[in-house]
């Protein structure tokens, strides 16, 4: 299985190299479809064999030799509950993305598809990497193809969009590189005999304890990079531009996969690496999340361009994800993970549909449409499902994610206020407003433009690529546990472990001299003190999730169960990290 994981990651890259030798455009398309489909098929066993009860360790772990001389920086990939769904989402979306650009890309076809394939290898690597340094490398590997995808095949303003996208992201990530180096040396000194290390197992081990002041700076630097990538308000200004100017495939990849790297990185690195800072800054991130939700929705409401509207709705949806993660309880984080998948599916579908309309009509302005439903009944159905999923209609996937997040936030001890959930819920209402209003203006009413009378409905290829997304939208909506169960154990463990370690570090820091701002931030804040007391003494850290809440229509059960003494946890964790799982 370890080999299979590596094959799945590198098969697309291999396919990209293959495309260099193919001259005919049709062959290029078929080869890409074949490669991405094969990647998806090969990745299915990874999900089927996945042990959902395993915690604290990754599965299918490949650990390479250190490749940078005297430093313990090594190739290390594996999947765990945090990453497996996003990994599958990436392999699942790839063939769809290839199909969606079948006819719309006509120039430099081989270049286009090889960029898509390289991007896929990079994305899979980001989700599978378990060494911070490898994560960084894979991440940058996704930036280069994205730069070309937007810049070469994009719309009118593509150059500005792509350069802005690239530089904006790079500023954050280069600063993060400095913080990463700092973490590497600090971890080396504390847990690796003085040898620089970025091994995920070591940098999240209980012995690795960064001081509170260090944590603050490192957390803010990492957080800045991830906020740009997500993007979290107020670092979002590159996103609508990049989304709008990118070709359909680029927008879909950007929305479905690339944005998830930011939120995934928050869950994978930002929270576990700097536990105290993460808890202390949780309210700040939650506020930014809520602002994102409402701001994104309000701006989406006034957009004239359908694609821009969907782009701003992304900001709103990702606000939910961030809110869920900083609720610091299983329900919220579970909701965040499933919401990442949901957003990938529904926003991906919306971008594809907008792309289909654009291909026929060469316009994305809402005012240029109207009455399209009469001409394109099949598309209308698909569009309707995607729209409702995006709004969060019960029975479709969007509802599951948003509901879990709202429940998690409402009960969050760390956030300590129901107002976050209340305000976020306003975002759901606004979403219904702008999405349905847009849908109504585009699809219904009289046909006001002559061109719209000539519109042809979507063909078999287009139906074929939308149907799988629709299946999952409904499936997640009806049986969410089929999906949430993959992440449940690991997320629960991760949050408990983080809070336990936060308690240990706070306990050790009590005797140290801290600057007054740090004292204020880490000790005096009442919510935080509670959270730390709780993590320190009481083992019941997945607070706020009563079984009654958990059962309320969401299907997530046993969230509050499975609680161990922190000492036992550590023991389990140590054995887990040593064991290289199957």
């Amino acid at each position, binding site marked *: 299985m370890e080999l299979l994981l590596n094959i799945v990651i590198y098969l697309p890259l291999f396919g990209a190299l293959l495309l260099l030798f193919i001259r005919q455009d049709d062959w290029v398309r078929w080869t890409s479809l074949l490669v991405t489909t094969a990647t998806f098929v090969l990745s299915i066993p990874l999900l089927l064999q996945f042990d959902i009860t395993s915690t604290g360790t990754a599965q299918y772990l490949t650990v390479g030799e*250190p*490749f*940078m*001389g*005297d430093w313990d920086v090594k190739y290390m990939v594996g999947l765990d509950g945090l990453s497996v769904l996003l990994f599958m989402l990436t392999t699942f979306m790839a063939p769809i993305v290839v199909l969606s650009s079948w006819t719309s890309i006509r120039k*430099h076809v081989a*270049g286009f598809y090889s960029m898509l394939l390289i991007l896929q290898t990079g994305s899979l690597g980001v989700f599978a990497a378990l060494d911070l340094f490898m994560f*960084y*490398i894979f991440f*940058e*590997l996704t*930036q*280069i193809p994205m*730069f*070309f995808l937007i*810049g*070469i095949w994009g719309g009118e303003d*593509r*150059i500005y969009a*792509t*350069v802005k996208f*690239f*530089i904006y992201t*790079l*500023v954050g990530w*280069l*600063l993060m*590189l*400095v913080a990463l*180096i*700092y973490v*590497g*040396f600090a971890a080396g000194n504390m847990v690796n005999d003085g040898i*620089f290390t970025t091994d995920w197992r070591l940098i999240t081990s209980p012995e690795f304890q960064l001081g509170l002041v260090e944590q603050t700076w490192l957390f803010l630097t990492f957080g800045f990079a991830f906020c740009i990538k997500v993007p979290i308000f107020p670092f979002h200004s590159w996103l609508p531009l990049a989304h709008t100017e990118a070709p359909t495939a680029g927008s879909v990849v950007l929305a479905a996969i690339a944005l998830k790297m930011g939120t995934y990185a928050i869950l994978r690195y930002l929270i576990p690496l700097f536990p105290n800072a993460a808890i202390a800054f949780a309210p700040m991130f939650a506020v930014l999340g809520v602002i994102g939700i409402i701001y994104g929705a309000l701006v989406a409401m006034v957009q004239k361009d359908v694609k821009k509207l969907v782009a701003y709705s992304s900001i709103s949806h990702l606000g939910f994800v961030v809110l869920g993660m900083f609720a610091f309880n299983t329900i919220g984080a579970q909701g965040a993970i499933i919401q990442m998948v949901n957003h990938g599916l529904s926003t991906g579908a919306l971008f594809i549909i907008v792309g289909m309309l654009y291909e026929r009509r060469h316009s994305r302005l809402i005012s240029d449409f109207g009455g399209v439903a009469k001409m394109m009944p099949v598309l209308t159905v698909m569009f309707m499902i995607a729209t409702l999923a995006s709004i969060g209609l019960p029975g479709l996937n969007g509802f599951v994610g948003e509901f879990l997040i709202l429940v998690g936030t409402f009960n969050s001890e760390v956030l300590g206020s129901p107002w976050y959930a209340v305000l976020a819920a306003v975002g759901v209402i606004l979403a219904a407003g702008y999405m349905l209003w847009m849908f109504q203006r585009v699809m219904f009413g009289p046909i006001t433009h002559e061109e719209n009378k000539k519109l042809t409905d979507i063909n078999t290829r287009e139906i074929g690529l939308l149907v799988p997304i629709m299946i999952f939208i409904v499936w997640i909506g009806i049986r969410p546990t089929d999906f949430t169960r993959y992440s449940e154990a690991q997320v629960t463990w991760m949050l408990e472990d983080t809070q336990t370690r936060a308690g240990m570090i706070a306990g050790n820091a009590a005797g140290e001299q801290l600057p007054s701002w740090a004292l204020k931030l880490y000790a005096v804040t009442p919510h935080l003190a509670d959270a730390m007391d709780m993590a320190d003494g009481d083992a019941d850290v997945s607070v706020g999730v009563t079984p009654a809440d958990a059962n309320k229509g969401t299907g997530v059960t046993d969230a509050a169960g499975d609680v161990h003494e922190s000492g036992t946890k550590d023991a389990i964790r140590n054995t887990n990290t040593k064991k290289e799982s199957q």
Partner: protein
Amino acid sequence: MESANELLTILPLIIIGAAGLFVMMLDAFTGSARLAYVSTILFSAAALAVAVSDLFGPMGESFHGLVTYGGTAAFGMVLVMMGTLFSVILSRDYLEKTGRHIAEVYSMILFAAFGMLLLVASNNLITLFLGIETMSISLYVLAGLVKNEKKSVEAALKYFLLGAFATGFLLYGIALLYGASGSTFLVDIAATEEKGMIYWAGVGLLLVGFFFKISAVPFHMWTPDVYQGAPTTITAFMATASKSAAFVAFILVLSRALPDARAEWSDVIWLFAVLTMVIGNILALVQDNVKRMLAYSSIAHAGYIMIGLAAGTPAAYSAVLFYLFAYTLMNIGAFGIVAYYEWHKGYDFTDIQNYSGLGFQQPIIGVLMSIFLFSMVGIPPFAGFIGKYRVFAAAVDEGLISLVVIGVLASAASVYYYLRVLVHMYMKENGNGITLTRPGTLYSAVLLLLAALTIYFGINPGILTDLLGSFKSVTY
């Protein structure tokens, strides 16, 4: 240990020195530039091979301690010979197509390379000075190679005047240090007991001399003009080999002659590194000429390398050596492609507007250019990233965090001007109607090799970092 064995320790120097004389004679008697070209390649390849094998050989001093061999000196020679060999191979096509393929070019390149080899091997300030002067005088001639072009003549004169000035500083610094310590051997200077005014003045002047050679701001004025005015492949040679040689010599002087003064020179270098990075990058942002942009980019790179020097630990020095290696690969590659585009329209076809749409004509060349430029930006998985990463890491380990933060912000700004080239190559329509012809086999092979090495050492830097790490016990 006299005689033959001792000569073997400086074999690359002997080969290149002999080659320079041989090629000069060849020119005098046959006048065939092609013969000169072939023999230059053969001699350089031989010297490179010897230098590479010296990497794994013993380290030590010879000629009564005037030169060192093995270790850092050998690696410096590898850098110099790589720069020489690759830019010589690229030179023929370019010089022929721009109509100035003459044999003297090669003998001048070889003499310059001889000076650089002496520079990286020097263990004594006099040897060092001889190396610098042999190198510089040959480079003044090369910069003015296109003698009927105003720009080229201006470049040569500017280089010569400013260079002579800097040499004066350097020499005066050497004299003062000799006065303070009573010796010109690096180790003896390190042992200076009494560090008075004379000593510090000597150190300061020596630093200024080196800052000039590595084109640190504010001693960089000559660089853009010289790099732009010289024939492009010669620019590649100057930008890589001479800069690597100067940096290696700088490391030798700092680590062997001035280890006790580290706290002082570290602060000075800190300041100049900031100036170099910030001003180099800002000026590069506004350039419309690709060659000039690359000149400013090489100034900016000197700034990043100086971060490593400011850290001043063995780990930092080996990171700097790695950086220089990556820098040599990507710069020769980028200049090689600029030269290739340039020869389609004769001299000086380097305005960025001219690059519109060229990426998709000859797609492989376009991909190679992207690799070199992304490597310069410092994006993984290319060697340039590892170089930057290791230099930054060494500095973070020494606590120079604010310097590194300035460094990463400067390199984030640098993205814009590197991407701008790619934007024109790929995202604008071909407006100038030129049709690219395939470059020659050897030319393409060199570019492909450089790109392959850039990727290889980006993915698997361990071999080189281990080797460089092993030098420190003896050298520093």
